[in-house]
């Protein structure tokens, strides 16, 4: 049984004793003449986590959540209620509370039909069961031993392993019946290295919509341990970061968080419908240098940010946001697409049944150019090379965004020089990409560690980019 709809029926509806007739009735209870759209989102999620610290398996936890969210939309108005009790009276009460957004009307009945599964980007598996507990423990111990073996300056190592399975079933009043079974795994390593009383941290991580065996293939887990140690030791050598506006070269992969903050959020449909984004009304205009093409692609197999369907049942797609420097499209959920007269793009996402969906990113990245990365570094007389980042943030109205380098080096005379302390970089979203002067041929996606927060809701996302040269970005160091 690997059909998501069958798995969702068996995992969510059958234990709750809910029949197809009940679903018709609940969907009908959401309907009223003034309701433009209504949907029900059933969800069951299981999450298991393990933590190794001080060389021992110190903590483990198991979480199970389930519930159903009911939404009724009338024009720009949304009524929403949810229940974490899946019995019919509680569900009917939630449906009626959501429907109260539109007064009057009578209940109808809706016939719902299953939709064919558009993609199969990941198998509907349960990663929690993909390794035995003994194997999970052994995996963590291996990472810990490797990090400690590499260098005596490594003082503290914290490693965590998370496996989750999220099963969703979406029923909408247009007859949609869709389901998705979403595995997600994550491994994180954090180390503290100490030398002459100075302490520095290094972190690394990886993840995917896959089984836990993902971390064993090609010894990825051990590679992550090495990466965390390398970063901590590099930071032990780091000097003051420069302050001011300068040429910045961003490394490939995770530094693509630049795109997520600088242009991604500003191109989400809700902000553009409301005219609150610095990008509002700018479709067809130049917002980036020629050669810059940025997409949001929810269809990459196994990626952390990928989904077979979004949380409204719309199949995900690859949406071109910026093409050769010209703004081409926004990311949409159903509500904002309808109100803007555009098509949904499979970007309607929600943290859980207890949250309303809204336009969110999936995997956002820039396509490769043709420059050799070495040539890009060599082209810079004096500047900053930022290899790794922590998080970022954007003010979508003013367009100002920040992202914080966790590993950076000076570039002097076309060569990568001494490491510098972490620093925040700040820029203006609508024009930063117009200053991209060289694009590498080394497109890479991040290792599967991104989590995006918007209006209090967190969802897993991915980013990526090739090596980029940006002529003029403000670097927030303390040095000259």
């Amino acid at each position, binding site marked *: 049984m690997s059909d998501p709809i069958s798995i969702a029926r068996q995992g969510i509806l059958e234990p709750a004793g809910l029949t197809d007739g009940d679903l018709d009735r609940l969907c009908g209870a959401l309907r009223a003449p003034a309701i433009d759209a209504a949907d029900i989102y059933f969800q069951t999620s299981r999450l298991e986590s393990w933590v190794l610290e001080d060389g021992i398996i110190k903590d483990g936890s198991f979480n199970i959540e389930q*519930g159903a969210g009911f939404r009724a939309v009338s024009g720009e108005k949304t009524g929403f209620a949810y229940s*974490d009790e899946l019995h019919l009276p509680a569900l009917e009460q939630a449906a009626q509370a959501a429907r109260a*957004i539109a007064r009057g009307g009578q209940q109808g009945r809706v016939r719902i039909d299953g939709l064919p599964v558009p993609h199969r980007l990941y198998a509907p598996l349960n990663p929690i069961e993909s390794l035995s507990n003994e194997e999970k423990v052994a995996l963590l111990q291996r990472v810990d031993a490797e990090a400690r073996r590499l260098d005596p300056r490594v003082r503290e190592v914290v490693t965590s392993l998370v496996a989750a399975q999220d099963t969703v079933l979406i029923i909408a009043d247009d007859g949609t019946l869709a389901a998705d079974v979403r595995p997600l795994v994550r491994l994180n390593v954090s180390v503290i290295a100490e030398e002459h009383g100075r302490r*520095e941290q290094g972190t690394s991580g990886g993840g995917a919509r896959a089984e836990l065996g993902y971390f064993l293939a090609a010894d990825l887990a051990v590679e992550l341990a090495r990466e965390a140690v390398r970063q901590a030791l590099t930071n032990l050598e780091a000097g003051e970061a420069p302050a001011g506006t300068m040429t910045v070269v961003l490394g490939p992969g995770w530094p693509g968080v630049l795109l997520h903050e600088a242009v991604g959020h500003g191109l989400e449909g809700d902000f553009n419908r409301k005219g609150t984004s610095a990008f509002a009304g700018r479709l067809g205009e130049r917002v980036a240098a020629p050669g810059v093409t940025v997409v949001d692609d929810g269809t990459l197999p196994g990626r952390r940010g990928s989904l077979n369907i979004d949380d409204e049942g719309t199949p995900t797609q690859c949406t071109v946001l910026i093409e050769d420097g010209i703004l081409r499209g926004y990311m949409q959920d159903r509500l904002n697409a309808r109100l803007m007269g555009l098509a949904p793009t499979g970007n309607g996402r929600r943290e859980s049944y207890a949250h309303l969906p809204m336009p969110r990113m999936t995997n956002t990245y820039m396509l490769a150019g043709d420059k050799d990365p070495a040539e890009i570094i060599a082209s810079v007389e004096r500047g900053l090379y930022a290899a790794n980042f922590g998080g970022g943030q954007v003010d979508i109205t003013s367009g100002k965004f920040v992202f914080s380098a966790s590993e950076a080096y000076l570039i002097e005379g076309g060569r990568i020089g001494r490491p510098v302390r972490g620093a925040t970089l700040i820029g203006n979203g609508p024009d930063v990409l117009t200053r991209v002067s060289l694009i590498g041929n080394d497109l890479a996606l991040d290792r599967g560690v991104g989590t995006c927060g918007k209006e209090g809701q967190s969802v897993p996302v991915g980013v990526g980019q090739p090596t980029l040269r940006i002529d003029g970005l403000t670097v927030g160091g303390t040095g000259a």
Partner: protein
Amino acid sequence: MAHFVLEDPQGRLGQLRDSVAAILTEAARQGATAAEAAVSTRAGLEVAVRLGEVETIEHTRDNGLGVTVYFGHRKGSASTSDLSPAALREAVAAACAIARYTEEDPYAALADAERMAGAIPDLDLYHPWAITAEDAIALAVACEDAARSHDPRITNSEGASLSSHWGLQVYGNSHGFIGGYPTTRHGLSCAVIGEADGGMQRDYWWSTARAPQDLEEAAAIGRRAAERTLARLGARPIATRQAPVLFQAEVAAGLLRQLIGAIQGASIYRRASFLLDRLGEPVFPSFVHIHERPLLPRGLASAPFDGDGVATADKDLVRDGILQTYVLDSYAARKLGMETTGNAGGVRNLAIDMGELDRPALLREMGTGLLVTELMGHGVNLVTGDYSRGAAGLWIEGGEVKHPVEEVTIAGNLAEMFAGLVAVGNDCDFPGSTRTGSWLIDRMTIAGT
């Protein structure tokens, strides 16, 4: 439709206490040598309006159950949103299954029995609000209207929202401790957009309180949101330089929270703090006193006992500039060979003693420098104290506002910033559980054009 107000909080609390007791009994039955459990139920109403029209009406209702079991010094945890007896048994079984694979940790155990809270004081935290969705919408609309009509340069809105929630939480452990209490929390907020010279700016204001009558008046919140937005119009970067920086009160609260991050138990035992080994040493100038008041009546972060069941108590964290204590739960305390400070779950109602200067006097004291009204990003490294964040605010010359500033960063090191604190203002005028005036820091690096 009226929003769901709890009829009988004491009766419902009794049911949650029964659930906790049942979990502890079940844990013992499944062989655990000790256990602790927390059960909660919450509900609320949230309405959002935009441009005078309803945008969303949300009815929230959440249950939660968390259990930790100990087999000697091995532990396992589980949680679920389902409070049914069957789910409760399964959660205990899941926690026990985990505990078979965790290893002996000599510090893993319940807090010491003699530290459990005794009589649980009533902190006046429960003030339910039987507001209807219609009335909630009317208040939010009034708030947004006040912002939109404040000035013609306010051209758009992200809207206003009103929320009202109640919650019941019960914690118990196998020492025989069991305690619970009801709480409420209400909030009203507004965010509007202004436009001038082709540039858009957004800002917001909010109020939050345990009792509805303690909320700031709707129109006053709206006006404040509009004023803050207008103050940002025409912002531009400044040239890179070193200068004094005044952190406006609500932004300075973040510096206090970073202090807590650096002195909390896990940061200390992981050697991940720039304040490691600084206990008893000066970390601020001698005029600085910082304390925690967890038992404040109606306090937004008040709690009679912490997440371990340990009684909370007032304490000084910094006295005469000297670090007096770390903030510890019982696990961290054992690991460090210290006593718990009753801070499992964090610090509650943090405050710094305020000085004499109001905002204009602080600006005169600074002379020329940057008043920071907003910070962006996560560029704070608590291991090293390195601090580098995006900032917006006002450029000040001779104590007077010259122009709004954006697209700059401010950078320094928290240890040096704390030591370089020149003055704390008396201008604490923002809601929330952290109380401080504005902080004047002698010198930071500002990166701009």
